[in-house]
C-alpha cells in the first residue's frame, strides 16, 4: 500500500518536470538568439519582411501564448519541419529513434555484463591481479573521450586488422535489410528469421556499442567495487560468516544483493549518458540514428531538428528515471518515503 502511494507520488512529480522540460525546449527554439525567423528570411531581409514572417510564425504574440501553441503542436506530434531532409521532424525522428535506443541498450547490457562481475571479483579479491586490472579499467574507461576511442577502434579493427566492416551504416549495403517492424535492426532480423542480416547488423553494432560502453564500464566497475567492499565489511555479513555459512553463499547470496542496489540507481543516469554519447558515436560510425540526425541538423543550421531530438531524448530520460525509481522502491523494502 505504501508502495502504491509512493508510485502515485512519483508519477505526479513527473508532471511538473515534463512541463519544465517542454518550457526549456520551447525557450531553446523560440526565445534564444538562434531563432528560426532569421534563418527563414536570410541576412538581407528588410524590417517589414522580418515582421511579416514573425507574424506568420506567431512570434509577435505574448510568450505565454506562444508557449501554449508550442505545447499544443508538440502534443499533436508536430515538432516542426526539417528542411535538410524535407520532412517533418517528427517523421525523421520516428525513423531514426529505434536505432539509437537499440545502440544505447546494447551498450548498457555490455556494460552490466562486464562491469558487475569485474567489480565484484575485484572487491572480493582485493589486491589480486583482477583487482588491479579492474582499477586500471575503471579510471582509463572514464578518461577516454568516446569520439577518440571510437576512432582508434575503427583504425585498429577496420583499417589495420580488417576484422570489422567499414564504419558506414548498421548493416552491409549488399544485404537486404529485414522488413521494418520495430525499427530496431537486430530485433527485426530476429523476427523475420533473417540470420544473414542479423550477423551483419551485429558486426556493425559491436564497435559502436563497445565505444559507448567503455566509460560506463569504468564507472560501474568502480561503483560495484566500492559498494561490494562496503557491504562485505558490514555487520550482517560478519554475522552470516560467524554462523558458519560458506563464504561463497555469504558473498553471492547475502552480500551481492545489497551491493547491487546502488548500481540499479545508476542505470537511469547511464542511459542518459548513453543517449548523449550516441550523438558522437553514431556520427563516427555512420549510423543513421538520432545522434547523426542532430549532427546533420547542426551542420545544415536546421535547428528544429536538433530541438526535436533534445525534447524527445529528455522525455525518454525522464521516463527511464521514473521506471528506475519505481523498480528501486520495489526491490529495496528498507526505503521509506
Amino acid at each position, binding site marked *: 500500500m505504501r508502495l502504491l502511494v509512493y508510485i502515485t507520488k512519483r508519477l505526479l512529480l513527473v508532471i*511538473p518536470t515534463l512541463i519544465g522540460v517542454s518550457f526549456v525546449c520551447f525557450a531553446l527554439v523560440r526565445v*534564444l*538568439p*538562434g531563432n528560426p525567423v532569421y534563418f527563414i528570411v536570410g541576412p538581407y531581409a528588410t524590417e517589414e519582411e522580418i515582421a511579416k514572417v514573425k507574424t506568420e510564425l506567431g512570434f509577435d504574440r505574448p510568450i505565454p501564448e506562444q508557449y501554449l501553441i508550442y505545447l499544443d503542436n508538440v502534443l499533436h506530434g508536430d515538432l516542426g519541419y526539417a528542411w535538410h531532409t524535407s520532412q517533418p521532424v517528427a517523421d525523421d525522428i520516428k525513423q531514426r529513434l529505434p536505432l539509437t535506443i537499440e545502440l544505447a541498450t546494447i551498450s548498457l547490457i555490455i556494460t552490466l555484463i562486464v562491469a558487475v562481475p569485474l567489480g565484484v571479483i575485484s572487491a572480493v579479491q582485493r589486491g589480486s591481479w583482477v583487482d588491479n586490472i579492474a582499477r586500471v579499467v575503471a*579510471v582509463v574507461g572514464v*578518461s577516454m573521450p568516446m*569520439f577518440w576511442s571510437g576512432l582508434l577502434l575503427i583504425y585498429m579493427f577496420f583499417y589495420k586488422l580488417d576484422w570489422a566492416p567499414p564504419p558506414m551504416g548498421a548493416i552491409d549495403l549488399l544485404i537486404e535489410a529485414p522488413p521494418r517492424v520495430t525499427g530496431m535492426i537486430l530485433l527485426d532480423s530476429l523476427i523475420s528469421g533473417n540470420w544473414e542480416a542479423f550477423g551483419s547488423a551485429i558486426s556493425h553494432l559491436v564497435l559502436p556499442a563497445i565505444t559507448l560502453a567503455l566509460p560506463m564500464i569504468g564507472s560501474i566497475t568502480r561503483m560495484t567495487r566500492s559498494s561490494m567492499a562496503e557491504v562485505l565489511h558490514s555487520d550482517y555479513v560478519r554475522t552470516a560468516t560467524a554462523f558458519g555459512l560458506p563464504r561463497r553463499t555469504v558473498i553471492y547470496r547475502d552480500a551481492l544483493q545489497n551491493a547491487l542496489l546502488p548500481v540499479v540507481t545508476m542505470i537511469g543516469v547511464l542511459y542518459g549518458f548513453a543517449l*548523449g554519447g550516441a*550523438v558522437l558515436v553514431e556520427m563516427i560510425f555512420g549510423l543513421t540514428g538520432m545522434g547523426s540526425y542532430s549532427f546533420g541538423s*547542426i551542420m545544415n543550421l536546421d535547428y528544429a531538428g536538433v530541438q526535436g531530438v533534445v525534447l524527445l531524448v529528455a522525455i525518454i530520460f525522464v521516463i527511464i528515471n521514473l521506471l528506475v525509481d519505481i523498480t528501486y522502491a520495489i526491490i529495496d523494502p528498507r526505503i521509506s518515503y
Partner: protein
Amino acid sequence: MTVVDDVALGDAGRPWWGARLWKRVEYPAYIIRRNPVTLFGFAVVVLFVIVGLAAPLLATHDPTAVSPADALKSPSREFWFGTDQYGRDVYSRVIHATRVDLFIALSSVGLAFTIGTVLGALAGYYGGATDMLLMRIVDVIMAFPPFILAMGTAAALGAGMANIIYVVALIQAPIYVRLARGEILSAKERAYADAARCLGNSGPRIIFGHLLPNCIPPILVQVAVNLSWAILNAAGLSFIGLGVRPPTAEWGLMINEGMSFMLSGQLWLVLFPGMAIFITILGFNLLADGLRDVFDPRLRW
C-alpha cells in the same frame, strides 16, 4: 588558543600564520606524497596548467600558419606530431589547444561553482518558497541528459568559445546547487551555527563567513571531477561543430578535422589531440580520487 599551542609545541620556527597555513595543507600534502597515483594526477594537472600558460614558448611553429608544401607529413624531427592537411604543425596546435581547453574548463567550472554554490547555500539556509522554486529548476535541468542539453543550448546560442563556457556551466551548476544546499542544511543545525546566530551575525555573514568555509572540502572533489567533464564536453561540442570555431586549435575540433584522414593512414591527426585529452582527464580523475580519500575516507577504494 590551539594556534598558540601548535606554535609553542611543534612549529617553533614558523610565524603564527605560517603554522596556520601549514595546518591547512599538511594533511593533503601528506596524502599526495604518500600516494604515488595521486601524485601522478597532481603532476599531470600542474603540467596541464603550465603548458596552457606557456604555450607560445613551447610551440615550435605558428599553430595557424598554413604551409601547403608541408601538408600531411608524418611525425619527424621538424614536425614532432606531424602536420595536417594545410601543413599546420600538429604539435604546436596540440600545445596551443591546451590553453584554449584550460581556459574553457576553468571559466565554465568557475562560473558553475560560484553561481551554484551561492544559490545552493542561500536556498539551504533560508528554505521556503525560493528554495522550492530553485530545486524545481534544478530538477528540470537535471531531467536532460547533460550532453543533449549542452548540444541543444549550444545550437540555440550559436557556436563560439563564450557560448561553450555558458553551456558547460549551465549543465554543471545544478550539481553545485544540490551539493552546497545539502551541506548547508546539515551545517546550520550545528552548535557553531547557533553560536554565530546568538552573537547577532547577519544571515549572509553566517552563511558565507561561518558555514560555507566548512562545506567547501567535499565540493572541491566535485570541482576536480567537473574540470575533467568540462574538457570532455567542450571537446565533444567542438567535435560536432558547436564549439570552438576553426582555425583556432582545440582538441575536439582537431580530432574532427583529422578524422577523414585516419582511414588513409594519417593516424597522427587523431592520435595526438586525443592523447592530450586522455592524459589530462586521467590526471584530473586521479587527483579527484586522491582528494576524495582526504575528504571522504569512507569512499576510499
